[in-house]
């Protein structure tokens, strides 16, 4: 069985936990976020007949008072950055979070989920923002915890990318 550690990182309130909770197997409650600061779930994805277990480290969101502990990110095989598409500030902190992740786990596959895609009226990101992501080499998807849009795709891409990546980090 192949297992991959995937860290979900984002600013507080971007909907990380809601995004995945219907799609993953979990035995720990949300209160772990406020205590230990991380909640661990499992998602099994089939990649061309090979089952890959993604062990998801749903790290408590960053806010003004609390930074994301780097120790939770180390050794990650992939990252899922979650941005709240209705709050531009969460988008602007992406580069910062990426630097944090890169510092802890090296250059591993990463994906940006532009979440809350169902709230079209309040959408705060522009075509140019998304184009900028592509330019910077980010893979991104518009996701919605409400409709479930692209959630499975995000996991599928991450699992596939970790298999292709295969490289060992320093």
């Amino acid at each position, binding site marked *: 069985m192949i*297992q991959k*550690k995937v860290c979900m990182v984002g600013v507080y309130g971007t909907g990380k936990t809601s995004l995945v909770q219907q799609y993953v197997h*979990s035995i720990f409650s949300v209160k772990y976020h406020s205590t*230990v600061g991380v909640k*661990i779930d499992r998602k099994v994805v089939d990649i061309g007949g090979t089952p890959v*277990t993604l*062990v998801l*480290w749903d790290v408590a969101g960053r806010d003004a008072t609390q930074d994301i502990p780097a120790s*939770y990110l180390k*050794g990650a095989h992939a990252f899922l950055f979650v941005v709240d598409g209705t709050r531009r500030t969460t988008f602007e902190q992406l580069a910062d979070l990426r630097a944090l992740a890169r510092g802890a786990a090296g250059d591993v596959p990463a994906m940006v989920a532009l979440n809350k895609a169902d709230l079209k009226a309040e959408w705060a990101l522009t075509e140019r923002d998304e184009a900028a992501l592509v330019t910077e080499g980010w893979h991104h998807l518009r996701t919605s915890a409400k409709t479930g849009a692209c959630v499975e795709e995000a996991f599928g891409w991450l699992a596939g990318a970790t298999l292709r990546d295969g490289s060992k980090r320093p």
Partner: protein
Amino acid sequence: MPDDRATPPDYLGLATPYDPASEEFAELRELLLGGERRELEELKRRLDAQGLQVEELADRLPEAIALRGGRDGQLARALAPTIDDAIRESVRQSPRDIATAIFPVLGPAIRKAIAETMAGLVESINRAVEHTFSLRGLKWRLEAWRTGTPYPQIVIKHSLVYRVEQVFLIHTETGLLLAHAAPAELKVADADLVSGMLTAIQDFVGDSFRQQETGTLRTFSVGELTVLVERGPQATLAAVVRGQPPDTLLPRLQERLELIHLRFAAAFADFTGDAAPFALAQSALEECLETVLQHQRPRGAHGKLLWLRWAAPAVLVVALLGWLAWRSQQRFRVAVARLEAEPGIELTSAERSIGGRWRLRGLRDPLAARPAAILAGLGMDTIGLDARWKPYASLEPSLTVARARQALSAPATVTLRLGGDTLFVSGSAPLPWVARVKGLAVLPSGVSALDHSALETTLPPDLAAVKTDIEGGRIHFDIGSAALLPAERDLLPAIASAFLQLRGATAGLGYRSELELLGRTDPTGTDATNQSLSRSRVESVRAVLTRLGVPSQDIRGTALGTSKPLPEQGDLDQARANRSVVFQVRLSLLSSGAVPR
């Protein structure tokens, strides 16, 4: 060589022929190439001396092994797989040699194993007895019943020192689960998530208390569970222990973890999330699973107590059995005595088997009580009763009487009693029966005489009514007079006619009826006067009855005077009642003499 030829200056003296063996040349060579030459020579020597090095190694190997072996266990661990393979190969090739070699150790080992198994068995029997009869055992049974938990689990829970329930091998950096061991009966799901969370908690504690560099969380307890965590550079070993883990457990985990690091060094280096290579570590983890119960118990006083625990119930059981046997024997004796005392039963033998089966032999009068009923009346179980009786006629009075009753078909109103060999018949019986008894020619067996003087005859109902009517009549007289008052005289024709009717009817049954007149006076006056007065009163009545057709020979007169007065309430009433003549009908057999008296 021509002089005009331009020749360069011969600085090195190369133009002149040189002698390689010359001192100058050697010196020059030494100056220019000395260092390199020595290195080359050393290399050449080493290449040439390959064989020599093996010899050197052979010389130094024991020393090196001893040195490294003394330092740590790495050498042993490194050699173990090779030695395992070597032994396996050796066994495959020549099993007989191996068998011969290990034979001397095999016997003692087997004996030791058997002895230990037996000791364990005795210990477990002792413990079972102890648990069964001790207060604590009862308490545990109660707990098992109350909580619905099987009793063995309760025993384990209370006698458990510790139990290593789960062992996780975790990749230290990523927190991914590499291998996991747990007993089959313990259903563990999501070991991978627990593994991740254990790592996260370690990181959390490290971050929170800034202990990342100097140490990590090694032990934490949750209720009855303790989690021991041994962190290595590549992998972390976590053991979940129920109960109190001994101090030796953590070092054992350390050792195990070092071994895993050594064996799986390559797998760790290549690890990108595939745990398959670590499946081989499973057995190493399973060796860590263990359950330790309290078996070392102090001997001495405790051992004696244990004997008491055996002995007390045994004594109780023996006492109970003894008491039951004694009681059974006692009841048997009582029953036999009761049967022997019973008239008409003669026991010749009485036995009772261990199974409680009765075996009785003897004589029994058919009229005697039934033995089974007697035994049942004593509360005995008569289901297994095996009784054989030979019939005989008993001369016991009660049975003689019973036989006479049967022979005479005596009605229930008749009482029979044996005095010597005379049967006394008393009570009352219908006239025909009385007539038959009095005219009896053959007496019942065991009876030589019959006394029926106390036997009264009961008449058929219609005649009994007539008799009652006659005997209910009473003729009153005035004070001191024997003259019949007119009203009283008028009562006599009815009485006379009733008597004549009765006389006729009883004569048909072979009986003679007599009418007895009983005359009385009140208590005043002298006895002589009263006697004579009562006689006069009888005669007055007799005279009238005779005139009315009653044969005088059937009338008997008795003057009672004041003796045997009639009872009556109040003195005046009693005086009046006794100034009277009353009637009584006497029945007697027409022909007497056939009945001996």
